[in-house]
């Protein structure tokens, strides 16, 4: 697939001082997003406020909808109409959006959902951080499906990973989730926005076939079908029901197996291309700290402290959390003593680390109920235990 360059008028090239929410918004605009629908919710609202202010000068629409159900399907309508679209929310709104993550997965509608995580459950801690939506991101909608979820740990990454999210959404025709947290969303740091020519965009997979030869859900060689934009004469049927290659409902287990296994395969057969992580000091590590989002930055400080004490600690930071870097964790588990998993929840990704480690290495969990980030000392203490 030949990648396109970003459109210069959409890219605020230069060095900026931005918070993560605004950086995410700029990332979306740079990626060519020209439609967003949202509903106000702390701590995510700045993303759409920024978009609402900027997009009319770039070309596109922001619409504040009546709720998150409306926002999360308005973007899907916009996508079929030809737009690049996304929505933004936080915990309670994310819960409401689950049905449309499933609908987007089933109808293979490329789109981006941003969740700026706060403390939960329910209304929880609206203004304070959490990382407890990670399993909801993976499994929150009903049925079997696969998504990709990215976890930025800085405003710079909020910009960069939002672009990546749009590219992955187009490449695999799936909903992609940007799982931020309140700290990353509200912290202000230097964000360097490159020239448009350095930003590569995955184009929509529009078909070049004439309508008479086109089947909307016939997979290409890579398992991914081509799209047709509404209004171009293809007159296709799109349904959330189990469907055949015509897009027609097919109510039987054979059609279900064929469709759902293909949807899962888009991700499961491409793990090496999709999974992404950062690692530090793993060469000689006996203890591997696993952390993502804001927590990875606290964990890094703890790692420095541990190294100063002579502990051989390394860091594994999943940048793409879903699909999980299973292969890498499995490799490490075969040679390290233990993992220390740090997250602002009472245990989510730690289960994934344990599963991948398969009993070969111990996993020590450092949880936090939300509302603050960890103290490096808590993590250090766990590292000391894990090194025993």
């Amino acid at each position, binding site marked *: 697939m030949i990648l396109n360059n970003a459109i210069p008028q959409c890219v605020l090239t230069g060095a900026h001082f931005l918070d993560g929410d605004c950086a995410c918004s700029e990332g979306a605009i740079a990626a060519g997003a020209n439609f967003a629908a949202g509903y106000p919710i702390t701590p995510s609202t700045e993303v759409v406020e920024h978009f609402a202010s900027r997009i009319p000068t770039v070309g596109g629409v922001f619409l504040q909808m009546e709720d998150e159900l*409306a926002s999360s399907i308005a973007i899907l309508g916009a996508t079929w109409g030809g737009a690049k679209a996304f929505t933004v929310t936080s915990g309670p709104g994310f819960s409401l959006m689950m049905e449309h993550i499933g609908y987007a997965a089933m109808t293979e509608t490329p789109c981006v959902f941003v969740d700026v995580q706060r403390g939960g459950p329910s209304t929880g801690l609206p203004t304070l951080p959490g990382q407890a939506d990670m399993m909801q991101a993976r499994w929150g909608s009903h049925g079997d499906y696969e998504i990709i979820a990215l976890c930025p740990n800085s405003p710079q990454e909020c910009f960069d990973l939002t672009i990546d999210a749009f590219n992955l959404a187009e490449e695999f025709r799936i909903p992609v989730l940007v799982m931020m947290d309140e700290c990353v969303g509200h912290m202000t740091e230097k964000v360097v926005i490159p020239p448009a020519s350095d930003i590569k965009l995955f184009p929509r997979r529009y078909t070049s076939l004439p309508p008479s030869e086109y089947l909307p859900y016939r997979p290409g060689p890579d398992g991914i079908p081509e799209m047709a934009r509404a209004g171009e004469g293809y007159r296709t*049927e799109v349904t959330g029901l189990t469907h055949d290659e015509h897009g027609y409902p097919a109510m039987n287990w054979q059609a279900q197996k064929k469709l759902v296994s293909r949807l899962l395969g888009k991700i499961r057969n491409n793990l090496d291309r999709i999974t992404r992580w950062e690692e530090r000091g793993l060469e000689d590590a006996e203890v591997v700290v696993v952390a993502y989002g804001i927590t990875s930055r606290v964990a890094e400080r703890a790692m420095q402290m541990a190294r100063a004490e002579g502990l051989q600690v390394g860091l594994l930071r999943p940048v793409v959390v879903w699909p999980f870097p299973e292969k890498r964790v499995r490799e490490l588990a075969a040679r390290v003593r233990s993992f220390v998993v740090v997250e602002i929840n009472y245990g989510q990704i730690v289960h994934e680390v344990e599963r991948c480690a398969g009993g070969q290495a111990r996993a020590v969990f450092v949880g936090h109920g939300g509302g603050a980030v960890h103290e490096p000392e808590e993590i250090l203490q766990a590292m000391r235990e894990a090194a025993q």
Partner: protein
Amino acid sequence: MSALTTINPVEPFLRADRMPHIWCPGCGIGTTVNCFARALVESKLPIEKVAVVSGIGCTGRVAGYLHLDSFHTTHGRAIPFATGLKLANPDLNVVVYSGDGDLIAIGGNHFIHAARRNVDITVICVNNFTYGMTGGQVAPTTPVGATASTSPYGCFERPFNLPFLAESSGAVYVARWTTYHVRHVAHAMVEAFQKKGFSFIEILSPCPTLYQRRNKMGDGLDTMRYYKQHSVIRNGAHTREVDINLQGDIIVGKFVDIERPTLHETMEQQLREKLQDRYAGGGGA
């Protein structure tokens, strides 16, 4: 005189390869689809520029049988999907085609907000007073006293008066007909397609399998006779006065036909005014 033709004039609009459809004998939804196809012929809209969006339920299956850009969405959310579709692609004529439960119960919030915004879409609501697909449960349109599977002793909630709800929320075109009034229905659809803004057509339709049978109202034909005998055409009637009761007359007609700038127009105007040369356009996102 045109030559005798054996071609069904509505066939080009249908996915013939999906027939037979799922609707019961005597159901009125198919009748409305025929009206819709005839309205498309009459309105001469370019067929590739018509998109139909449905929610879930018996009427929710309409989109899938129409050979158009058709979207069978989630329960209650056809209208916000259509809103996104229309804003992203303003050249499309976007029609939401769904049932009373879908549009007015689970989707009620979207209905009033789309009318308020005056999104340039047409909403066709086939009102059969019940949830057909799931077995005949009580709906927000079920008349007081009517029996449904979840109101076995009769419905005790006051139903919505849909034309009144649509008008008071801001719809610029509001009509109600029954499946007996096929020419009126088709004509109303033509008018609604041409109307700029949020146009709404309620079509009363029999559900002989569940609603009529359970309420001892006979079959589909008996219902057509009832519609014939009890419909009172009152164009321009105040929508406040068109409530539907379990028995008695049904007021039908075109109730509202006014002009009001659409969402797209007000958005464009406001942004152009404020941003002037800096406005890069929103239409065709």
